Every structure is written in structure tokens, then in C-alpha cells.
């Protein structure tokens, strides 16, 4: 597969603050590439550098194998983090305006605008001005403005911030649909669920460095955790806790007086084994969970902190 965006050893400093620290990215054609990281980790800075809005101190960036120029820009669609539309223009005019920055042929543009209105589910709102739109619709307009010209590469910088769950699902479905139609997508978010749901490959960024990269399976293999089991059980004795801790494959144990949480690394039937033991000890138990590792766990284990603060 061809490389669409390649970022090598990218360094960006804001005075003392190092925003990007030798960032490496390699995004292949046809991917939905997720950039995951907490707020302030450098996702947007990286995007702005790729788009050549920002100067950078060191490193190489190429898009479609070239340095960014007008010709390359034609094939890029961008959905910015902040809604960037003209307040005085209505929905259709806004889309036409932004599409017009890329396509000068009128007939083709009209077709594209019609398509994207249908795609974004903005039918019936064509004559509305942005101020009259709900938050979700406004986001969808923002996306429509970015993708109307059918770009080969779409960069979306947190397009679902402050959007209700319904609109969010619609947006995510839309992104997958765009990908099916052949677009490569770079998607930044600090919502790991979104990234897990749609991205084919993910880079986790923290403090301007990508600390892990790969498919979600690959990422999860990076850490020793394979399963987390939680059992509601009040009043466990020291002895019982000790036994639990020494269960096969368990490598960590937490107890807050109510819920026992065991972290496992590999092995099968971990939950059954624990429940069997508790049954034998006649410990009354409440709810029981077994969770597979999430990207949050990946992040937690690699950086030692929660993704969401």
C-alpha cells in the first residue's frame, strides 16, 4: 500500500514548551488512521504542521510523496476542530463557498454540493444560517464543508467534540462510509471509544511523541494485561485477598472494601477460577465483570496515567 502521509522526526517548540518531540507517523492509503491522545498532547499541532499552517523546527513531512503545495492541497479535505463557517451564508452557500475553493467548474460543484448535503443529512436545512442550526447539525455542516470536494485524504480534528450521541454515531458512520468510498482518513480524538470503533490503525500520542502505533489488536498485545475481573464482595479477609492475589496469571490485585479487582495477563478461565474459589469460601458476591483491555489500559500502562483526566 502506498504511503499517503509521512512524518519523520518532527519537532515543534513553543519557546520552552516542546509540543512535538520527534514525532513519527506513516499513514497508508485506505486507512482510517486514529491519532489518540489526551488534551494538549500535540494532536492538533501535528495536524497543523502537516497542513503547513505552522512552522516547525525539525523534521520532514510529505503528503502523497510531495511537500505540501497547491496541487496536493486539492486532494486534502480538512474538518477543523473549531467550526469554521461564515455566519452570513446559509448551509448550501457555505458548502458551495468552501467547495468553490477547490472546484471551479460550476456544474460539477453543484453536483458535489447536492451529494454532500444528502450525505451529511442536511436536507431541509439548506436555507438555514449556521446560527439557527443545532450543535450536531452545525458539526455536520462543518464536516460537509470540509469534504464536499471528494478529497483523497480527509483530516478530521476532533469532529465530534460537543456533539450528542445520536449525531456522533451518524458522524462516525459517515466517516466509515467515506473510507469505503476510497478516502484515507486521519482522525484525531481523545475519545478512545470512537477511535477503537472506527480506526484501522492507531497512534497514541503523549507529550508530542507517539508512544505506540498499530492496529488495536497490535496495541493491546503491547501490554501484559489481557483481562480485568471485578467482583463485588464485601468484607474479604486478608487471607482471602492473599489467595486471590496468588491466582494463576493474576499480576495485580486491588480491593477497596467492596469490590475486588484482579488484573490478568494471559491464561483462560480466569473468571471461573476466581468464582469457584469464592463459592468455596462461601463469600456472598454481587455483580461480576470481566473486561477485555481497552486503549485506555494501553495508555495507562505505557504512560502510567489515565487517558481521560
Amino acid at each position: 500500500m502506498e504511503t499517503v502521509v509521512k512524518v519523520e522526526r518532527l519537532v515543534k517548540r513553543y519557546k520552552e514548551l516542546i509540543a512535538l518531540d520527534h514525532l513519527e507517523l506513516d499513514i497508508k492509503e485506505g486507512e482510517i488512521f486514529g491519532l489518540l491522545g489526551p488534551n494538549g498532547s500535540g494532536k492538533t499541532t501535528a495536524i497543523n504542521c502537516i497542513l503547513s499552517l505552522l512552522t516547525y523546527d525539525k523534521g520532514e513531512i510529505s503528503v502523497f510523496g510531495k511537500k505540501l503545495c497547491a496541487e496536493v492541497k486539492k486532494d486534502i479535505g480538512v474538518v477543523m476542530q473549531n467550526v469554521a463557517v461564515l455566519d452570513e451564508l446559509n448551509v448550501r452557500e457555505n458548502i458551495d463557498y468552501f467547495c468553490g475553493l477547490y472546484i471551479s467548474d460550476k456544474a460539477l460543484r453543484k453536483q458535489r454540493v447536492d451529494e454532500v448535503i444528502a450525505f451529511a443529512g442536511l436536507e431541509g436545512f439548506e436555507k438555514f444560517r449556521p446560527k439557527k442550526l443545532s450543535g450536531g447539525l452545525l458539526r455536520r455542516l462543518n464536516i460537509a464543508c470540509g469534504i464536499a470536494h471528494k478529497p483523497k485524504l480527509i483530516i478530521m480534528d476532533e469532529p465530534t467534540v460537543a456533539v450528542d450521541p445520536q449525531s456522533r454515531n451518524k458522524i462516525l458512520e459517515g466517516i466509515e462510509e467515506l473510507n469505503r468510498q476510497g478516502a484515507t482518513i486521519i482522525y484525531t480524538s481523545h475519545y478512545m471509544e470512537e477511535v477503537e470503533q472506527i480506526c484501522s490503525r492507531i497512534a497514541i500520542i503523549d507529550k508530542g511523541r507517539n508512544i505506540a502505533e498499530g492496529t488495536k489488536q497490535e496495541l493491546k498485545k503491547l501490554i501484559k494485561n489481557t483481562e480485568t475481573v471485578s467482583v463485588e464482595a464485601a468484607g474479604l479477609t486478608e487471607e482471602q485477598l492473599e489467595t486471590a492475589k496468588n491466582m494463576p496469571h493474576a499480576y495485580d490485585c486491588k480491593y477497596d472494601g467492596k469490590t475486588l479487582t484482579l488484573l490478568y495477563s494471559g491464561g483462560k478461565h480466569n473468571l471461573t477460577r476466581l468464582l469457584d474459589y469464592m463459592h468455596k469460601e462461601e463469600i456472598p458476591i454481587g455483580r461480576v465483570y470481566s473486561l477485555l483491555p481497552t486503549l485506555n489500559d494501553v495508555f495507562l500502562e505505557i504512560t502510567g496515567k489515565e487517558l481521560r483526566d
Partner: protein
Amino acid sequence: MLNRIKYELISLLRNKIVVFWLMGFPVVLGTLFFVAFGSLADSEQDYSDIRVAVVKKTEAPEGFDEMMNALSGKDGSVSDGENPLFEIVTDKEDTARALMEKGELEAIIYVDGDVSLEVPYGAGGIKAGIVKSVLDTFKSRYEIISSAAASHPEKLPPIIKEAERETNYIKSESNSANFDPYVQYFYNLLAMSGLMGSMMGMYCAINHQANLSALGARVEISPLSKFKDILSSLIATLLIHNVFLNIASVYLVYILGIKFGVPFTIIIAVNFLSSVIGDSLGCFIGSIGGLKDGIKNALLLACSLGLCFLSGLMFGGMRLIIEESFPLFNRINPAALIVDCFYSVCVYGNYEKLISNIVILLIWCALLLTGSMIMTRKRKYNSI
């Protein structure tokens, strides 16, 4: 590019504030000026029919009655259609004083051996001044003749002959130039409306600079060149600005009937230059990074209002004061140059000055346009 201009136009026009500001400002203020100055220009011209009372306590000196009759048109010396200088309202003291209290009388002339004058306190004004000056002249001539009659009666005939001669010794060289000082307020108004466009120029810059607004960033990542981008936005702004300025000018010249004393084509041309200067000034200041919008706004307001103050928007004599103390400033102050374009044609009837003013304005346009283009040309930012 046409598509961009089209949408810039639409979005500007839908912005009601912009529309009102650009067109309403000169129209509303022009109307107020018109109302305020309308009668002012007249009052300066209105000096005939000065209402006086002549109260005689004794017999009037010889020649006094004849003079008063001549000046009030009672001897038929004033031809039809002309107004006599004086209107003698009454000869009774009580009536005269009552009229003066009501402000309906300019002066009371007392003849009591000598001639004396009573005018409303503090508000005699120029009409009373004219009455007094006429009486002064009469008094001096009367004294000269009567003293000559007393001391050298033999010299009297040539003196009387001289006294009967026409008494205007001044040859007027006045030209037909328009000296209505209030028209310059309208010149200034147009200059101000031109420079106030800088507010629009500022939004032009802010909306197209990635480091100033999200919209700017969004536009900047498109393949359109930055030059075309800013240019199309400026063109749209200029188009609208010019249309509005010219509508306002039509209103001032043809509806209010302000005598600009300048062909309308020149007004259009000057409007164009002032809009270019205003808009590109706004664009220039607007594109300075690191300044808050509020500060840019204040800066632009200070520029447009300050320059117009110095060219006489609030106090008409300002331009002359600067012309006398620091003439160079009038040659570079765009507001003064705009005013001077109209003024030189209207007052000097001279197109040479107009052309030199226009040349300097063009230099300003070129400087500011290049300046704003250079300021906005940058595509990469150290921070957003």
C-alpha cells in the same frame, strides 16, 4: 475567484451592521449637518432689513434724516427686488424698548443733540455693528463739515461737493469661488466614511489569516493562493464600500442639494481612492498578529477619527491651522488630502492641486495595499 467574490459580497450584504454603518453613517450624519448648517449659511448672508428704531428727543442734525431715508429706502433710491439696509420700525421709545426685550429689534438710535445707540446687551451682533458703523461715518462727516463751516466757511463748497460724491472707494476683486465654509464638513464626512471602511478591511484580514481565526485557517489550507484569497475579499469589500459611498454622495448632492462645487465624476473618483485607503489600512492593521481585536478596533477608530479631526470634521478651521503651522502634515494626512481634492476644485477652481492630491492618494493606496499584502502573504505561523 468570481465565486469567492460573489460569496464575500453576499456575506457582507447580509451583515446588516455593515450595511447600516457604511451607508447610514454618511446619510444620517449628512442629514444632521444639513439641518444644522442650512440656516447657518443663510444667517451670514442675511444683513439687509436691519430692524432699527429712531427715537428723536431733539431735532436731528442736518443730513441725518436724509441719510436714514436713503438707507431705509423711503426716498425711493432702492430699486425693486433689492432690500434696503434698514427697516425703521418705530420712533417711540417705549415701543422700541418693548420690541428689543422680545429680541425683535437690532438697535435703537437716539437723537439727543448727539446721536447715540442702544443695542441688546452682549448680543448686538454684526447687524448692530453695521448700524453703528453707518452712524460713525455720519458723525465724522457731520463734525468735519460743521467744524469747517464754523472756522473756514469759505472752504465749505468744495467740502460739500466732495461729501456728495459716491462713497465707495473699494474695488472688489472677489471671484465667484464658493466660500460656503460648511460644505467642507460634507467633504470631511465623505473622507470619514471612506476611512471608516477600515473596520471592514480589518475583518477582511482577520477572516483570512490562519493565526487570527478558525475561518482563516480553514481557507488557508485550500489550494487557492493567498494573494487571490485576500484580493477577492478586498475586491468585494471595495465594491460594496464604493457603491455605498456613491449612494451616500448622490443623497448629499442631489437630494439634500449640498453644493460640492465639484463634478460628480470627481466625487466618484475620490470616493474610490478613499475606500481603497480605508480598506487597505484596515487590512494592514487587522493583519498585525498578537493584537487583540478590541485594540485593533480602537486603533482604527483613532486613525479614522483622529485624521478626520485634523482635517476639520469637528472644527472646520483645523485644516488651516495645520496648513499654517505644519503644512507637510496636510500633504500626507489622507483625510486632509481627500478633503483637499474637493476643496481645491471648489475654491481655487484649479485642477493642478487636485491632480497632485490624487497622486499622493494613489501613493498611499499603493503603500497600504502592498503593505497589507505583504503582511497577509505569510502562510506559515509560529503559533496559531
